[in-house]
């Protein structure tokens, strides 16, 4: 009797020390963490200030307005050593990073999808060749591949006087790839207007076609109309304008002189090497993403679509690809991000990207390590975070809604 009562009285009001309260403990741990982080930052900051003062290095972002005093081999905006500032150099580097990433993403998507689909081919030979491609490219560091392209392949190209002629105004030599340079006439606006009208028109036509199919079941030749509006119409306009002597686009061909090529557009060998390396390397990863995505669509889907009487082309277009894309897009975006980040390896072969120009030359000239590192990392971080924010929105839209 007595023992029962003690047991009951023990359980009724729990005598809790506040030290056992998970909330109190949680707050304690977090206060310790915050204190440690603040302490670390404080020590680092005081040391940095002292070190900078001793080395007589200025601080703050004023250096962005100072004259740069160095040249950059590829500039998309006006840039000169004497007249441009470090801020201009930053923009030049950023644009160079963005352009190599954008062109790289465009090509690597094609190559990656091609190899990924080839890996699933029923043709044994094609599948094996694609597999060897993926395994070799994935297992060798990008840096080695870039150096290989730059030094071993492009370095072996002939002098300008012996340029390799590749037809259609393309020349290849040790100074890079030369090709025709498009010159825009003032009436290019007409062509652009037609193209924009075509795009807008095809967009509305597709919407109309979809609504009509939902209401009446009749299908419209969407693809043919779209192609006509977007490609045939602008090209026709171009031809008509050219016939009337108002050619909106003309090409300046590179001409072969005794020692060098003049005119046309020159693409730096560094750019070519970087692009080749990034495209082939990332394509191997994208191929795996695509393969996994297509394999993730269960066989039952294909069979069910077939039993509904859809022809193979439509099964692929309407059933398999939309479902595979849901699996493919998120890792594909992260591969695009990887390509953008990997473009920073340009520094190894001397392509003037953001890291090479800003973290390299500007950092060495000004010595303002903290500011330069913060700006450069901030750029990459912004690109990554924007992309992943966009990805989250997309994911929410395409995620399977479970009922």
């Amino acid at each position, binding site marked *: 009797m007595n023992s029962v009562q003690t047991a009951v009285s023990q359980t009724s009001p729990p005598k809790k020390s506040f030290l056992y309260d998970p909330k109190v403990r949680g707050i304690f741990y*977090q206060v310790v963490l915050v204190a440690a982080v603040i302490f670390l930052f404080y020590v680092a900051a005081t040391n940095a200030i*002292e070190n900078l003062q001793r080395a007589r290095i200025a601080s703050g972002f004023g250096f962005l307005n100072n004259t740069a005093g160095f040249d950059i081999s590829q500039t998309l905006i006006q840039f000169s050593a004497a007249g441009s500032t470090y801020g201009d150099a930053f923009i030049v580097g950023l644009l160079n990073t963005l352009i190599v990433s954008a062109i790289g993403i465009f090509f690597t998507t094609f190559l990656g999808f091609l190899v990924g689909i080839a890996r699933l081919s029923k043709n044994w030979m094609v599948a094996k060749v694609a597999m060897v491609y993926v395994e070799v490219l994935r297992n060798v*560091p990008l840096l*080695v591949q870039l150096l290989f392209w730059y030094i071993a392949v492009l370095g072996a190209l002939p002098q300008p006087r012996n340029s390799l002629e590749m037809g259609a105004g393309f020349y290849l030599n040790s100074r890079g790839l030369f090709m025709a340079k498009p010159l825009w006439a003032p009436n290019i606006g007409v062509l652009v207007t037609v193209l924009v009208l075509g795009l807008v028109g095809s967009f509305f036509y597709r919407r109309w076609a979809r609504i009509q199919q939902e209401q009446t079941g009749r299908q419209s030749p969407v693809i043919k109309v779209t192609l006509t509006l977007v490609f045939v119409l602008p090209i026709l306009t171009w031809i008509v304008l050219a016939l009337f002597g108002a050619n909106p686009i003309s090409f300046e061909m590179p001409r072969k002189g005794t020692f060098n090529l003049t005119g046309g557009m020159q693409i730096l060998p560094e750019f070519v090497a970087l692009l080749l390396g990034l495209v082939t390397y990332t394509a191997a990863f994208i191929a795996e993403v695509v393969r996994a995505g297509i394999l993730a669509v269960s066989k039952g889907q294909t069979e069910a679509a077939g039993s509904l009487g859809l022809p193979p082309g439509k099964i692929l277009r309407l059933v398999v690809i939309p479902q595979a894309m849901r699996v493919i897009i998120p890792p594909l975006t992260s591969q695009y991000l990887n390509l953008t980040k990997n473009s920073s390896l340009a520094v190894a072969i001397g392509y003037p990207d953001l890291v090479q120009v800003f973290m390299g030359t500007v950092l060495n000239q000004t010595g303002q390590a903290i500011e330069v590192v913060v700006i450069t990392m901030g750029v*990459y971080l912004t690109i990554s975070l924007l992309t992943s924010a966009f990805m989250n929105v997309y994911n929410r839209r395409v995620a399977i809604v479970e009922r």
Partner: protein
Amino acid sequence: MSTAVDMPNFVRAREVEALPPPNLARGPIAWIRENLFSGPFNTILTLVVFYLLYVSVPPLMKFLIIDAVWTGTDRAACRADTGGSESGACWAFIWDKLNYFIYGSYTISERWRVNIFFALLAIGVVWLLWLKAPRRDLGAVYFFWVFPVVSYILLTGGNESFSGRFWIGFAIFGALVIALFAFVAALLKASLRPAFILGGGIVGVIGVTLALVDLDFGLAHVPTSLWGGVLVTLLVATVGIVVSLPFGIVLALGRRSKLPIVRMASVIFIEFVRGVPLITVLIMANTMLPLFLPGDMTVDRLLRPLIGTALFASAYMAEVVRGGLQAMPKGQYEGAMSLGLNYPQMMSLIILPQALRIVIPGIVNTFIGLFKDTSLVAIVGIFDLVKTIEASRIDPAWAAPTIGITGYAFAALFYFVFCFGMSRYSLGVERRLAAGQKR
């Protein structure tokens, strides 16, 4: 009317031998027909691939093997103007420079120490990665404590000769740590024994480590500026994995924590590091680390990129481990809590052993990425394998047209062998783990 029964001569007395399978349904010819020439499109595809292979493979083989120069002592062997051959790879160059590619400029008489380091590393890797190895818990202790300490002593020579003041400082620090643990235990009204064991253990491990590093084993000091080649490549990768695994686990736990500030700090660190390229982290470590330390303290030039890569790899490892933690069914957490285990016990005894096991393939894949990324330290001037090849490539004694391509082919082969081996291993583990999950 006659029936079949009436006609006994229709019943076979003996079995007829089976016909051989038709050639067109089985056998190599059928296989070729089905897999290579099953339709006009496939036939064209096969022929195109055959043509591409015909164009690319024989010249490659010719360059790499048939026409290659295997012996020679200097550039003469690989230059046409001195009677050598220029049409094939110059393997003689690799052979001549092999020691430099493996050890860098490490003192020649002391290179046996590097060999022991390679052997110790191999033992640790096999112990941890071979799923049937005995006592893998001891393997972890070996890999994360014994091996780093021994390697440090072997490679640098140890014999740090700490001052007496340093040891007094350490004694005070140790006493403080043990006192702190005892104080917390007293506050929590828990027994003092585990507190002393835990605090004493931590202080003891650090103390033994410092004492070992302090002792003079009679090994000559080899400064890190002499290290190079494969040694540095493997060293960066090893330090990366030894640091990033524990640190990554802590970050992953932090990211899954219920405490908002801990979670936020982990998320910020992980997303920050994953959002920037490794090369910017390396340049940051190279230029900013010396700024953040007191003026009289210098950081070894090799240590800076080591810190950079280790931090970088930790963030990626954290995401892999988080995947494993999230894959654990909720019942495991609830079961552990219902047994009355506290957070450290629940994590170390129930959750982590299972979670880490299912993410072994992910860990190995991260490690493959880390191993390839070690080549980036070449950009900040560390003599890893890529940098030693770069340096040898421009050596006038070996100035020949095929040197560059041979050097990079060698580097590619080296990385390929390691990375491909690891990826096969992770595939094998994945298959084994999947076998247990099959219903």
